[in-house]
């Protein structure tokens, strides 16, 4: 029997053994959400560790972690930042005053604020940029929303976010190496629950008590 999606806890699972840092997810996010230059709701950071000659590069996809206990929401003076029952953390652009308190409260640097419209190729927007331009996003806080429109589109259709591409975040669909997974952590049968059962994982800055909704898979422990 299919679990009720209204009581889901959607999470992202990132398999760090698979990510090759190609930034396809970064590009897919920009294409899907029309974010302006300098704003990357999804990006892949390149982390170099070790000492020559024993160095290692790790590619770590990051975006809003959709925290279970989001500091950005607690501090928001307008209640523009909210958490849904399914774990997605969103922003109401009509309420937001652009105080950026959320941006300094987020331990993951996943909030953005642009005051003026800017476009990739000089002064005016390209046709694609013009089609996606949303003045409501100027002067307010923005961030990854886990492609919430797609998640919402799954409701009542029998489709499963994380499994059916039309109702899955764009970055997950685009990943060429199968490093990104999305699904319902509260469903023991879900793809992500299975991955977490079968693999070692960590969550970034877990010690800060944010209950982040992004899990990073690794190959065993040292």
């Amino acid at each position, binding site marked *: 029997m299919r679990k009720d999606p209204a009581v889901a806890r959607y999470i992202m699972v990132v398999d760090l053994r698979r990510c090759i840092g190609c930034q396809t997810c970064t590009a897919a996010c920009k294409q899907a959400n029309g974010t302006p230059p300098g704003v990357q709701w999804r990006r892949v950071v390149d982390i170099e*560790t070790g000492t020559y000659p024993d160095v290692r590069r790790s590619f770590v996809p990051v975006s809003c972690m959709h925290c279970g206990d989001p500091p950005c929401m607690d501090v928001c003076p307008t209640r523009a930042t909210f958490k849904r029952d399914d774990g997605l953390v969103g922003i109401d652009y009509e309420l*937001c005053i652009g105080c950026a308190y959320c941006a300094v409260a987020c331990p993951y640097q996943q909030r953005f604020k642009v005051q003026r419209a800017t476009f990739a190729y000089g002064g005016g927007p390209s046709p694609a940029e013009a089609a996606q331009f949303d003045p409501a996003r100027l002067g307010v806080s923005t961030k990854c929303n886990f492609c919430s429109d797609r998640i919402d589109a799954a409701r009542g259709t029998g489709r499963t976010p994380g499994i059916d591409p039309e109702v899955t975040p764009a970055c997950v669909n685009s990943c060429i190496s199968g490093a990104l997974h999305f699904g319902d952590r509260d469903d023991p049968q879900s793809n992500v629950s299975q991955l977490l059962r079968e693999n070692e994982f960590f969550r*970034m800055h877990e010690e800060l008590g944010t209950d982040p909704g992004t899990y990073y898979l690794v190959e*065993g422990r040292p």
Partner: protein
Amino acid sequence: MSASMPGSVAPRRQGFWDWRAACNFIFGGAGAGTLVYAAVMSPPSAGPGLLGLALVCCGLLCVWFEIGRPWRALNVFRHARSSWMTREAIVSLPLLGVGLGAAWYGSRWLPWLTAALALAYVYSQARMLQGARGIPAWRHPRVVPLLIATGLAEGAGLGIVAQLLLDPATLPGWAALLLVGLMLIRELAFVAYLGSLGPAEAPTRARAVLVRFGRRLVGLDVAAIIAAAFGTIEPGQAWAVGLAGLVAAFAGGWFKFTLVTRAAYHQGLALSLTPVRGFGTTRPGARPGW
């Protein structure tokens, strides 16, 4: 294991709250301190009270210039349940109202009510900074007593200046002693804050900024204490006490500017475990910039 991270992985300075936000803390804290000082003066002197209210208004105006959607500013009142920014805004209303009443009617108890509200205001500001969990130098709990202590020291300093300029006869001899005491308390609060901001509490660069500033704060406080002592001991040299007050206020403002803009490094990104692709084994994690 050493770690270097290209791009913006290591903690970098936040750019969301600039000098305008800093001025809210600078003027708001000093203004609240001045209102407390105005209550402590007996009989109440209107000069420091009005100066305190003007400073609080300046701070709020600065933050209004900072926000991205200023015409929606009234939405700030919507989240009293957990946002210290909302609480600061809420406290500001009775503070300004009662403070004006105190200045207008010259009553004996209204300044004390104003002082209580001013303390609530500076406390809200301090908790607001502490609530920013993405900035390690701000979220440390000792930031709260430090911001209150510096607000009170700045307020005493500015209150003394206002009295000297407007009504020197109302300045009691113990005002300089009060100022020195408050500066010493601020210095202690700063040392306690910095001492507990170890390598696990804040990024290396944030701590370096604060250590550098700490030396300047000591220098300024020592200069102010010497000026206050001179002004008290030497007859007819009250201007030196005023100078001490100005230096105390300047040092506090400079500290808050440093904390809000210069030492405000983000948490940065980190790996709890270093993953492996292909062959090799998982390694311990890395936290660059710490």
